[in-house]
């Protein structure tokens, strides 16, 4: 059991800055995120795209912003629980008992949901039968590539994951790469490599095709693909892999009794608490009149939510407002030596 003052759900910019604000006022926290790294949408959706509206930062990329936030919270030694999604939530007297998908448990005074538009999950095939094979002969990510050795694999997608795995697996397996158009969104060099391998007969490239159906008993045996002009091809396949990026799903948060409207959680603007005492929501996931989905708004919301958490974490103490410029306590927490 991890005992800490506050559990932050989501390691995007808003969650990271909220951790900083908690640290400044002397509260401890830990952060859970379903991705394998911190940064949220900034890292997953637009690491290289520029952002121009962070106050006092004329231009930075999603990755730079994330790295700077991580640097800013370094003094607090915050523990991250990545690749985990919060699953269960139970009220335990005045505290909350939370359990993640990896079975990690927390005992916390308050919870800050900074979950963006939800947790990132792989996008799946539109074809219904695919569900039946998911996890045994159909995958959206690869954990153990050795199972594919000497097998026939059909890979769908045109991004970096699809291209990289097609190239990698073509060394030891028979690979079919199927994509809906001639162009690829993945790196130009990888696309060239795939075309070369196709010409040399090292893999089979099918463009302007999309999945039509999968057939098989226990495991996939055949996959049918359909051309733009309607022609259907059957290809033998032991495994099917789909790489269509990630989509955001709200997940178990929906079952927590929060007031939810259009995939967002309603909060008050005084301290960004939800209708459930002790649960706060900040960033893209919260809604209130006038809400702007900007990173800078998330920072403001996180600062106020952190102060809102104080009365739950330290019910017998009073929080005094201080500036980091002059507060001895804040500077000690930041590890500043004079």
């Amino acid at each position, binding site marked *: 059991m991890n005992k800490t003052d506050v559990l932050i759900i989501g390691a995007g910019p808003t969650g990271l800055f909220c951790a900083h604000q908690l640290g400044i006022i002397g509260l401890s926290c830990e952060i859970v995120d379903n991705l394998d790294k911190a940064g949220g949408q900034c890292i997953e959706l637009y690491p290289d795209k520029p952002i121009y509206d962070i106050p006092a930062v004329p231009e930075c990329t999603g990755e730079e912003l994330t790295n700077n936030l991580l640097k800013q919270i370094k003094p607090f030694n915050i523990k991250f629980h990545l690749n985990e999604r919060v699953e269960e939530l139970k009220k335990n007297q005045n505290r909350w008992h939370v359990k993640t998908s990896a079975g990690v448990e927390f005992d916390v005074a308050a919870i800050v949901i900074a979950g963006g*538009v939800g947790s990132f999950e792989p996008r*799946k095939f539109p074809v219904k039968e695919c569900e039946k094979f998911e996890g045994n002969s159909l995958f959206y990510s690869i954990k153990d590539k050795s199972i594919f050795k000497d097998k026939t694999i059909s890979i769908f997608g045109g991004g970096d994951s699809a291209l990289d795995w097609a190239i990698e697996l073509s060394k030891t397996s028979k690979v079919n790469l199927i994509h809906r158009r001639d162009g690829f969104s993945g790196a130009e060099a990888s696309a060239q490599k795939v075309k070369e391998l196709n010409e040399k007969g090292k893999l089979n490239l099918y463009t302007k095709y999309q999945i039509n159906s999968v057939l098989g008993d226990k495991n996939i045996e055949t996959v049918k693909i359909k051309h*733009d002009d309607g022609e259907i091809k059957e290809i033998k396949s032991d495994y099917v892999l789909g790489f269509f990026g990630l989509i955001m799903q709200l997940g178990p948060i929906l079952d927590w009794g929060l007031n939810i409207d259009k995939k967002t959680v309603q909060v008050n603007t005084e301290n960004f608490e939800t209708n459930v005492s002790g649960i706060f929501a900040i960033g893209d996931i919260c809604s209130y009149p006038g809400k702007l989905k900007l990173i800078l708004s998330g920072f403001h919301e996180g600062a106020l939510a952190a102060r809102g958490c104080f009365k739950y974490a330290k019910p017998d103490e009073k929080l005094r407002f201080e500036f980091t410029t002059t507060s001895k306590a804040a500077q000690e927490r930041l590890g500043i030596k004079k």
Partner: protein
Amino acid sequence: MAKITYHAHDNKTYTIDVQNGLTVMEGAIQNDIPGIDADCGGGMSCATCHVYVKEQWLDKLPAKEDGEEDMLDMAFEPKKNSRLSCQLIVSDELDGLEVNIPSKQG
């Protein structure tokens, strides 16, 4: 101002006056039309505002910018007439535009 018709997946049809300068995505969101999620808020980074444009409108719309086709690779059942509605900025020229909303966004 343009009249935009959204054919939702449940066979309901919504015809809305959308102000010039808004996107076809925003027209749907502001009017609670189901089936357009727009998770990223119009940043061309999520493909959850995907629509099918009525064939006769395809050539009349502004061309796809770099990145839109890449994002459409991620969309649910993309077709030749697929567009991201966050990239369609409403103007008088779009008056009468009809789009079909896919059965799912992901």
